[in-house]
């Protein structure tokens, strides 16, 4: 996500409760870097028991340049705190994930990595489900999303996350700038 307006088409993977073990199975967690995790993203959906790519898997014709918005069912990202989940989605090329509800930790992890968790209501999701490949135009600074052929909706995002996402602002820099307050707290305690 950067500054201005982001526009891309949707890619549907609409199932409820897609958990972090499905997003990236545990065997890919032994890495010590954050790069290259696309190889493990949705691995069991994409590859069969022998590790060969499945004939008809959902990501077969996926092209991140065209469809950088992943649309999922309710309670997306539940399960583990592994940040490998958003890292692998970003590495696949997604910039936005859409769901009716995100698991807490996944939501936090996404925002910290510049992946926008875009929460919509059930009727908007139903529309996207019925209309794959829909163009979305997202204005992060104003938390507005134009769903082509449907409506323009507001989505929830707190001020600080909005600021960070739309300015590529780094949260650790912010915390470091507050070190005097932290030391004062430590003296007091």
């Amino acid at each position, binding site marked *: 996500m950067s500054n201005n307006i982001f526009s891309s088409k949707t890619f549907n993977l609409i199932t409820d409760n897609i958990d972090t073990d499905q997003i990236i199975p545990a065997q890919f967690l032994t890495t010590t870097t954050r790069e290259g995790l696309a190889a493990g993203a949705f691995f069991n959906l994409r590859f069969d028991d022998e590790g060969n790519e499945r004939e008809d898997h959902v990501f077969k014709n996926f092209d991140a340049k065209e469809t950088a918005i992943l649309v999922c069912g309710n309670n997306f990202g539940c*399960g583990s705190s592994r*940040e490998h989940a958003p890292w692998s989605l970003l590495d696949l090329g997604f910039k936005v994930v859409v769901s009716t509800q995100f698991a807490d930790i996944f939501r936090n992890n996404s925002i910290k990595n510049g992946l926008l968790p875009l929460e919509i209501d059930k009727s908007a999701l139903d529309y996207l489900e019925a209309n794959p490949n829909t163009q979305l135009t997202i204005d992060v600074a104003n938390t507005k999303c134009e769903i082509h052929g449907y409506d323009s909706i507001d989505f929830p995002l707190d*001020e600080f996350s909005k600021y960070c996402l739309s300015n590529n602002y780094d949260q650790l820099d912010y915390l470091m700038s507050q070190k005097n307050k932290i030391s004062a707290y*430590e003296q007091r305690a």
Partner: protein
Amino acid sequence: MTTAKTLFDKVWEAHCVQPESDDFPAILYIDLHLLHEVTSPQAFAELERRNLTVHSTKNCLATIDHSTPTSAPNALGERDYVTAQAKNQVDTFLENCKKHNIECHAWDSEQRGIVHVMGPEIGATQPGKTIVCGDSHTSTHGAFGALAFGIGTTEVGHVLATQCLLQRKAKSMRINIEGELQKSVTAKDVILHVIATIGVNGGTGYVLEYAGSAVRAMDMEARMTMCNMSIECGARAGMIAPDEITFEYLKGRPHSPQGEDWDKAIKQWSQLPTDEEAVFDKEVYIDASVISPTITYGTHPGMAFAIDASIPATTDESDISSLEYMQFAQGESILGKAIDLVFIGSCTNSRISDLRHAAAVMQGKQVQVRTLVVAGSELIKLQAEKEGLDEIFKAAGAEWREPGCSMCLGMNGDIGNPGDLVVSTSNRNFIGRQGKDVRTILASPLVAASCAISGTVSDPRTQEQAA
């Protein structure tokens, strides 16, 4: 305006370096940062990249547990890692801890264990603390009246560099569990029942407090099992007010306050419980006496039911595909179904009381399927061996393995074969978590041990009668 506060309010407010505002999240101070090999390497790398140091090493505590093998070392003391990458991950972690002067319990420490087992066991987990770890089951530590939750790797970096986190305060929900538990019903059954009741995302956005006579009656190990699974209904954390049982547990542990400090601590900790007038955003009431031994039948922990019940009818698409994966049908009972594997372990159920439960069932019997028993820590392993539990397991034909996460997430290579039906005392029955196409039934150690003995899904209550 009421000044009455919840346990959560009290711990939260005491740790606000800066309270939250509309525009900014709170800056929350973290007392205890638990670290392990899987979710920290990228955080240490980031620290290095920015040329930062660890802000406060005394607030950090580390162990190795996730990708460590549970097979015994060979004669040379070498461990059989699942891949070279797994070994590299552990080695990298040990180097990082050494470099940054972080107390780490590795292979040479008697205190090594699953991170959420170790913290309480050595007394590092204490009432009123804020505790985080790059692991979602950090909620376990809430059993002591701590505010404990899982964080991602970027946040691990934040805490390393500043000992603080940016946080929005969650809403509060009290789960009141009143009454007496039936025989053969344990904390695991209670928490599965709670999750089934409020739903797999029923806790999203909340910090839970478990209260009521059934919770007060639980020992610390049972309370940890409860809080451990808070995350499975989406809750940020789960907490239980500290009381005499908490203090008794902590007394004399290596990291617990000693002497005068202990008396001071007790005084402070006694102030923590929720004030009588305090108001929660939501209250849930559960009758403890109706809870049966409870297991899961689907692919998330909310799909749980009494072990002798029938799978409820559903029109929900994701539930239907979940049942397809499990190869179960609506309306059927899963009692008596043949199983392939049993796992007794994980930070949910690998403590000494869990092992005692399992051993009591297995004593003098034979397991019918492969059964892995994995203690949560080196100390628990030693204790179990002192009590002769290991002999009971081995005589029954079960495997007595080295402590670690093991089959809970299977990243160390402990997994089932495709299609296996596994009865597991861990916390997640997600698709593929215990190996590709492995089907997981979550259960208590009592239930899991009964299943191991019969080779089928079986009810500990009826098995006892048959014996």
